[in-house]
């Protein structure tokens, strides 16, 4: 038994046992891949843990990811070239009733480990950000920064709220542009006005019920004059620092301008300026980060004289906002985007696993011919679509389904022939490769057709439009179909095709 470098004796023994007892499992080398990827992930995690010590800084995880992807690719090539050279199937050895599934599972785990390691820098960055800043801590700091700025600069702040009087109508006039100017028409097509000034008299704006709902949600204060007339008040801006989603996962919420006005400015009391300034300095040191922009911070250079610009410049809120945004983004990166990460992980792993599985079950020449066929069909389909008119998406999806049907026929024809041909091998390879994605293609085609019908017939039922559920079902169905067919169909087809005589 060959001694592998950097392999503990226990794993060496396991390797030896597997070689002599479970050659199929040994040949996949999953145990070695898991060991080396885990070792690499641990080293990488430790490295990232020390490098990502300051969560307020701009994220460099993109560069780290590129680096780790390159390492993972090297690992993958090493695995393919040096470890996957033994193959029970190609040596015409004995194979069990479920070895196709077992092999696919082992490849999936091995490739999954290599793909997963690419997410380590991002995960460690999030971990570090959460260790450094609590969910409530960051919201409290944002509130403190805004309130302190208002208290320190009370004399500079506008205190009058801007009114906006609106009349609610059932239907808004339609704007029509013509050579003679702007014309307003009612819905039934009768011309109502032909004036240069579009605004209603006495500064009363006209809104419909949708506009009303929107304004009621966003206004800081509302007075209802009668059933159709409202006065909406908008508080001046007292929020100088903030970040998207900063309080989404916090029990404490970020105070908006109206909250700040009501709590601090409405009954203003003179603050202890020295203490507040000291605290502002502390917070600036805690969050302040230079802008990535080469030209420096916007507020450092601009000549704006508005109170907002002056306050932001005075208390370095540009730099502080950078830090707060960076922290918030890092803290909630995984909480917010895990479905995307999960899909990236799953599909990257699935695609590579399919390629490896096909490569291990077909002739090398047929494998590369299959890749070439796929590329040529993509180019051909693109050309046909460019040169044709009509519904591009529907055409593309229809093409894919037709190709799949052709590959299916070619693959199944393997059962009937006694000689191995490259065409059948290509068909079989592409049939397997497309199978997990076909439900997704069919669902997409269905939804596209429904959308077109809806466009032509607006009265149609829109209940089908929960497309997210459709796509999720199709994604799961594709994997389940692959899982079910792998052993009884694909493995049998490969067994028949690979062993068949040439010519």
């Amino acid at each position: 038994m060959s001694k592998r470098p950097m392999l503990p004796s226990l794993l060496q023994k396991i390797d030896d046992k597997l070689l002599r007892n479970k050659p199929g499992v040994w040949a996949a080398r999953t145990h070695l891949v898991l060991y080396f990827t885990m070792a690499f992930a641990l080293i990488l995690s430790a490295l990232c843990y020390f490098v990502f010590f300051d969560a307020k800084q701009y994220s460099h995880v993109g560069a780290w990811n590129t680096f780790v992807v390159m390492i993972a690719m090297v690992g993958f090539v090493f695995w393919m070239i040096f470890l996957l050279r033994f193959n029970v199937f190609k040596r015409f050895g004995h194979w069990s009733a479920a070895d196709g599934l077992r092999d696919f599972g082992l490849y999936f785990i091995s490739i999954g480990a290599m793909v997963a390691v690419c997410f380590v820098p991002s995960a460690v960055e999030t971990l570090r950000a959460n260790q450094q800043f609590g969910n409530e801590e960051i919201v409290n700091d944002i509130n403190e920064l805004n309130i302190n700025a208002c208290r320190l600069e009370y004399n500079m702040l506008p205190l009058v709220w801007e009114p906006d009087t609106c009349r609610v109508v059932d239907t808004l006039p339609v704007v029509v542009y013509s050579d003679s100017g702007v014309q307003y028409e009612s819905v039934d097509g009768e011309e109502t006005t032909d004036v240069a000034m579009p605004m209603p008299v006495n500064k009363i704006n006209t809104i419909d019920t949708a506009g009303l709902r929107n304004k009621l949600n966003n206004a800081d204060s509302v007075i209802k004059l009668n059933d159709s007339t409202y006065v909406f008040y908008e508080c001046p801006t007292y929020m100088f620092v903030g970040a998207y989603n900063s309080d989404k996962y916090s029990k404490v919420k970020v105070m908006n301008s109206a909250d700040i006005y009501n709590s601090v400015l409405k009954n203003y009391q003179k603050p202890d300026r020295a203490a507040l300034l000291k605290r502002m300095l502390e917070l600036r040191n805690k969050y302040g980060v230079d802008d990535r922009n080469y030209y420096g911070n916007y507020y450092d250079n601009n000549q704006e004289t508005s109170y907002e610009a002056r306050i932001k410049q005075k208390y370095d809120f540009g730099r502080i906002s950078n830090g707060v945004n960076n922290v918030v983004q890092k803290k909630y990166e995984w909480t917010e985007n895990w479905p995307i990460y999960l899909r990236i992980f799953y599909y990257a792993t699935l695609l590579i696993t399919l390629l490896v599985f096909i490569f291990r079950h077909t002739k090398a020449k047929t494998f590369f011919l299959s890749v070439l066929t796929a590329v040529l069909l993509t180019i051909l389909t693109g050309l046909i679509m460019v040169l044709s008119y009509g519904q591009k998406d529907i055409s593309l999806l229809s093409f894919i389904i037709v190709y799949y049907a052709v590959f299916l026929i070619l693959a199944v024809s393997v059962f009937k022939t006694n000689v191995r041909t490259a065409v059948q091998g290509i068909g079989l390879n592409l049939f397997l490769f497309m199978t997990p994605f076909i439900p997704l293609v069919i669902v997409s085609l269905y939804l596209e057709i429904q959308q077109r019908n809806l466009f032509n017939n607006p009265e149609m039922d829109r209940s089908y439009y929960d497309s997210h559920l459709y796509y999720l079902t199709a994604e799961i169905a594709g994997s389940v179909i692959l899982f079910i067919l792998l052993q009884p169909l694909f493995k049998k087809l490969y067994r028949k095709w690979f062993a068949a005589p040439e010519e």
Partner: protein
Amino acid sequence: MQHILQSTLMIKSAAEISGYLKHGDYAVAVRRTLDLCLDSGIDALIERAIKWSRTYHEFEKASAQKKFPINFIEEAESILQEVSKTDTGRGQQNLNLISADKISKKYRNGSFSLKPIDLEISTGHVLGVVGENGNGKTTLLRCLAGQLGLNNGVIKYHLLGKPDAYAIKNHIAFIPQRIPKWYGMLKDNLHFSAAIAGINGDKNNLMVNFMLERLNLSSFAHLTWDQISSGYRTRFEIARILLQKPRLLILDEPLANLDINAQQTILTDLIFMAKGAHNPMGIILSSQQLHEVEKVADEVIFIKHGKCLYKSNDSEGKITSNAVEFETKAQRESIISLFGEENIELQFNGGFYTIVSSALSSQQIIAKMIGAGIELTYLRDITYSTKRLF
């Protein structure tokens, strides 16, 4: 009755090996002892034989002065005594493996075609395929191995029922002339091959060690493919194939890469193992080494231009003339004058003379030349050899 016969066979074989030991033919004795222990099917005996064989190989590698350990012969006798007590004998012979009925093949690209050929092979049977280069030997072997589809004819695999192509390739081992490269350590490859053939655990170790010793490859086991010569590559490939216990072994030019000693050793070993109880199998081999093949094959067929021109078993009793091939410095005229022009046909191919005669037997031809004092540097009776067909 069979039990007694088998037991007697083991005793006879053990006695034969004792004879080799007595006369100092240790290399043969070691190989035969290993075979006998394998046939016994007793792991402990196989283990002992491996250990004993290692002692011999260590001695063989050491300097000429080094002596055998004191108990070397005693250990051998003890092993042979143990083996004699077992009742496993040689393998079951003449179990029909495959029959090819008028099989023919024509390549899509190219004008060459293999004309219809019939043949049969059973366990313990060795079929030699000879012929010039490019005349269809490899095509025939690949057809029989299930690597090439047939245009006409049928091959029946008697032990498989209705097999699919994968089962056929599991049943038959084909060693091509150019053996595909092995990757990784050679011993790992052997363990892997044994394991995929269902030999697991300690038995896997035992069988790999046995095969390494049997083919004298132990000292190369920890090397890689690139570190061994082409002759050893052939031997490793044979070891790998034998571990997978095929029922039919097809070898295409297996002697091409072997030295003159190894050619004879490998062939006789293969034949001996094919007839063993461990895994009785049939062997088909093609070679340019006519005399080596003819020496071990039960049947030889000669192929020319894709057509089977000669089958040794069919031609028995049909030979009407005798032939002797020889090399001499004597003049052609003196040879003709010795025999008389009407009694022989004398041919010279630039290297050898061949005398063909219907009137004289081979023994008479040879005796007459020696009696006349003709100096012979090489001599072979080729009356029944396919050499006459070249």
